[in-house]
């Protein structure tokens, strides 16, 4: 069934007023009559009564909303508002139509409609959700970049929540590798949250997409974020967890993914790292450990830099660095113990050189290996 734009304008009006949060009412209303007819019923003040006759159950809140729609129908410029939204590059996909993401539509709890900007993922391509902690370690950052890049190169699509940390980094890397990425937001698609991810947000709209079940203009509120996780996993074939604490929002997404029958891959970490505890626990429960992007792509990817570092001072220092950034003091102590005393200024010089080369990275006053 191909919905006409006029129908969709009315559906948008209904969805905004009632559909969000009550998918069943939305579906029932859709089954009641044509969207435009529903609007006319509302204008005549017969919408709530008609609904009650067809679905005789006592739902006061629902009735209240329908009454409200009847009252406000006269003042709403349904078509004009919809056209304005389209003009701003925001599109509207209703469950049941062709445009609506196929994989998501097959899940039990799919949202009644989606707003999106940019493109929706190609249903014929493999799609992976790359998710993880907002406060991640250098290791997590490195892995997010490595996996997302490999996925993009294998022509797979990366979906995530555009959050700080793993989510945003993975999407960034996918876009940089000329792949497709979709950001699922917990606010309206015209709102950029977190604000520091604005460059990513704009890049996503330009060469990927952002979507949300919430109408444009919805601000970021804590309660809105957990439900969007089901959309992240719903859009995908499989889910890749990079870093997660023992109790983390990431694990909510994993639960939803399992309910939706998605495959869960997990990047293992050190058992001592709090940020790997969630991941390792998932592996114990039966998730697939992702030891390399190959597990997901099936294709060989260029190997990680494991080339033996040169045995000069710089090479030795590089050998002492870890993904976890360390203070200069720590590095110096390790170097002194292994190779004999190095001066602080000499160490600074080598570290800066490594940073300039791009093999090391500075975080505050600490230095770590770059992924």
């Amino acid at each position, binding site marked *: 069934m191909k919905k006409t734009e006029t129908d969709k304008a009315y559906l948008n009006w209904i969805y905004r007023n009632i559909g969000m949060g009550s998918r069943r009412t939305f579906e029932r209303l859709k089954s009641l009559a044509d969207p435009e007819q529903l609007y006319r019923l509302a204008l005549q003040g017969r919408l709530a009564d008609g609904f009650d006759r067809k679905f005789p159950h006592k739902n006061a809140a629902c009735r209240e909303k329908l009454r409200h729609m009847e009252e406000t129908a006269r003042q709403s410029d349904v078509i004009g508002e919809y056209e304005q939204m389209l003009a701003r590059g925001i599109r509207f996909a209703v469950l049941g139509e062709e445009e609506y993401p196929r994989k998501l539509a097959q899940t039990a709890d799919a949202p009644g409609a989606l707003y999106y900007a940019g493109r929706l993922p190609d249903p014929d391509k493999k799609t992976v959700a790359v998710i993880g902690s907002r406060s991640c370690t250098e290791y997590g950052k490195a892995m997010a970049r490595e996996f997302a890049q490999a996925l993009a190169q294998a022509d797979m699509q990366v979906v995530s929540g555009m959050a700080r940390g793993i989510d945003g980094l993975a999407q960034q890397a996918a876009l940089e590798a000329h792949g497709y990425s979709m950001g699922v937001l917990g606010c309206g698609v015209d709102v950029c949250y977190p604000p520091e991810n604005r460059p990513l947000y704009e890049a996503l709209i330009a060469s990927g997409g952002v979507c949300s079940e919430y109408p444009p203009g919805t601000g970021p509120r804590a309660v809105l974020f957990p439900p969007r996780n089901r959309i992240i996993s719903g859009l995908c074939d499989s889910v890749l967890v990079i870093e997660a604490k023992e109790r983390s929002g990431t694990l909510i997404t994993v639960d939803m993914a399992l309910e939706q029958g998605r495959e869960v891959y997990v990047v293992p970490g050190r058992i001592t790292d709090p940020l790997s505890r969630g991941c390792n626990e998932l592996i114990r429960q039966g998730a697939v450990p992702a030891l390399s992007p190959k597990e997901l792509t099936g294709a060989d990817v260029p190997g990680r830099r494991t080339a033996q570092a040169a045995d000069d001072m710089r090479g030795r220092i590089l050998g002492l660095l870890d993904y976890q950034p360390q*203070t200069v003091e720590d590095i110096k102590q390790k170097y002194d113990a292994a190779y004999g005393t190095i001066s602080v200024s000499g160490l600074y010089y080598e570290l800066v050189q490594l940073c*300039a080369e791009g093999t090391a990275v*500075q975080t*505050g006053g600490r230095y770590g290996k770059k992924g």
Partner: protein
Amino acid sequence: MYSTITSGTIYGIRSRLIQVEVDISQGLPGFQIVGLPGSEVREARERVKVALKNVGVALPAVCINVNLSPADIPKSGTMFDLPVAVGILTALSRLPAESVKDTLFVGELGLSGEVKPVKGVLPVVREAFLKGIKRCILPQDNAWEGQLVTDMESIGVADLQAAVRLLTGAEVRPARTERQETFPENDDNDGSAEDFADISGQESLKRAAEVAAAGFHNLLLVGAPGSGKTMLARRLPAILPPLSAEESLEVSSIYSISGLLQSSGRLKTKRPFLDPHHTITGRALVGGGRIPAPGVISLAHRGVLFLDELPEFKRETLDILRQPLEDRQVRIARSSGTYVYPADFMLVGAMNPCPCGYYPDMSRCRCTPHEIRRYLRRISGPILDRIDVCVEVRPVEFADMTGQPGKESSAQIRERVMRARTVQAERFARTGIHFNADMRAADVGRYCALGSREQAFLEKLFASMKLSARGYHRILKVARTIADLAGADRITEEHLAEAVCYRNMEVFNV
């Protein structure tokens, strides 16, 4: 009869000589003090009257008028008691007019006639000496302060009678025995045995302290609680060069005005170290009051101002430091005039990297990025812009505690610092700049010129390490200091690399 006595008052940090003019005439009996006296000066009337009575001078029923000239300067403090009393005695011809000529009188009177110590003696005596006065009569407890001014005959008196006996020639004044003829030796070893050798390990931290001390750069220590930030900061004065004779008088004057010199009983030779608690108000920091008293930053003049737990300070309080950090002095405007206090201090800040203290160790840090950002945002950019050297301190581990104590003592480090300072003194001779940290943008271009290779190296670093242009001059200034420490004429790649590591913006880019 009429008499004039020389005294002085403190006006901000400066002292002014004041002529105490006393006139005694027949008429309705009375006692007035005019010439913009503050309330404590006005009260001198009662103290003088009673003190004179108690030493056996009954005031006749006459009209006494005292004028403090110049009359347009506000006068405060209790320094005028003794000069007013002496002036009355002279006007009553109890004292020969000759005996009070070219003599500075300063002192507070008790009701019994005893002469009590006052604040700010040193700067007043210095001022008098510069104006050609060769003798001063001071409270016994302050006499040593006067003696610090070479070639000034400074006599301490315990009570009013002693002053009278002295001036009438009834008593030969005691020989000056305690006079400090020469500038005292450095008193660093006055019991506070704080030495850099106490700090085991922490080489990078000590190195940063050395660089900061050599160029008088402001320093920021970032690290978890218990990583030795405070321990290091307390030892900083020990590696700074000792105060020169001139600086010592300058610092001692400020302490004298604040009434803090008496307790030590000697000239300040050690660089001041001030560590106000973070609940300090802006007024206490820069100085306040109707006639402002020097604030903590002025007491830290030529020394170290240590602000522990920097983000805990109120943001407004910290922002007050912006102007003093730039101008090296603080101006306080009052209706009675603008007061300028010196405030050339080295700012040393210490802070945790995040509320829990473990960032960026994400496996231990429990703070959300938002919390960290909010915590760091308490320090405004303009303050950060004035901090040249930033170093991250690692928490002390057990091995550090049991390991070898540090190899170098403060004296050894200080030697290197002083060499670097000599280089700077030669370079900046007659430019008004003292240290590398004082260089302005134009000076950086002149004194921190880079070779083409170094320029290319720095450009590469800027591109690959995403350095901000704001820090460019700071990096060059610190590189200059590092080169000075190494005794190098030209700044090399190594100096630049180290300077880049000391920049602070990275820490705050969460």
